[in-house]
């Protein structure tokens, strides 16, 4: 095959028609891409689940602080937190005139 025929071959190949995209092509691409979008805003329970370790640590810290404060007040001879609660209950919440 001579050079002229080879050139003819390349020139003709340049004009070869490419297949047209199917009607569903664009939708298929967008479907594939949507699978890669960043996740939507998480639901409230998902958010709580994500926060759970922090909430648990915060609750544990509050309990420890309360116990430490109660122990400190008792050692110092002051009324403890439990005494304060008993006093409040006795004075207001559970009295016959309270409600």
């Amino acid at each position, binding site marked *: 095959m001579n050079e002229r025929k080879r050139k003819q071959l*390349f020139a003709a*190949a340049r004009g070869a028609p490419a*297949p047209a995209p199917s009607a569903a*092509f*664009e939708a298929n691409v*967008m479907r594939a891409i949507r699978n890669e979008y960043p996740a939507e805003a998480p639901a409230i329970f998902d958010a709580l689940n994500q926060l759970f370790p922090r909430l648990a640590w915060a609750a544990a810290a509050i309990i420890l602080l309360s116990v430490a404060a109660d122990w400190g007040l008792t050692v110092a001879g002051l009324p403890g937190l439990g005494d304060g609660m008993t006093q409040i209950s006795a004075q207001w919440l559970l009295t016959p005139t309270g409600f």
Partner: protein
Amino acid sequence: MNDDAELLERIRNGAPDDFAEVVRRHQARVFAILHRYERDAHKVEDLAQETFVKAWRALGQFDGRAPFEHWLSRIAVRVALDHLRKEKHRRNEIGLPELGEDALDWLRRGDEPSELDGRAAAEILDLALRELSPADRVVITLQEIEGRSVKEICAATGASGVAVRVRALRARAKLKRALERLAKL
């Protein structure tokens, strides 16, 4: 929306559904590139989808220095190259039954000039190019069929200028031999 830059800015700023417009604008070009390396229309469509998904993933890397179409074309060429590498083992046999009558007639005429349409030319080239390595095939296709310069081929393939020139020379010689063999079959 006038140009790609504005459209891409909108997509980056949180309008991912506007990527459909990118697909509409560039699908013909992507199909045309991929069709040079794969003649099965269904496979071309799969490869085109892969090209757009890869473009979507890499959109943050597009810096706008070159036209978006060039950047997307590079992705399409690399998708084609990966495809050729995967398909290499399946496609290492040349057989005349895959050629249509027009292609056979043109080949049998030897050096005698005769009419050749695009479809028949694509059939012949597809068979002959199977004898080349995937990288050689990409270089010769970009150079001889798409008419790209060495610089453009470097950009599309990530190869150096010297590598592209050497590869093109070798690929052209191999293609010549493959076409001569086909003409004798």
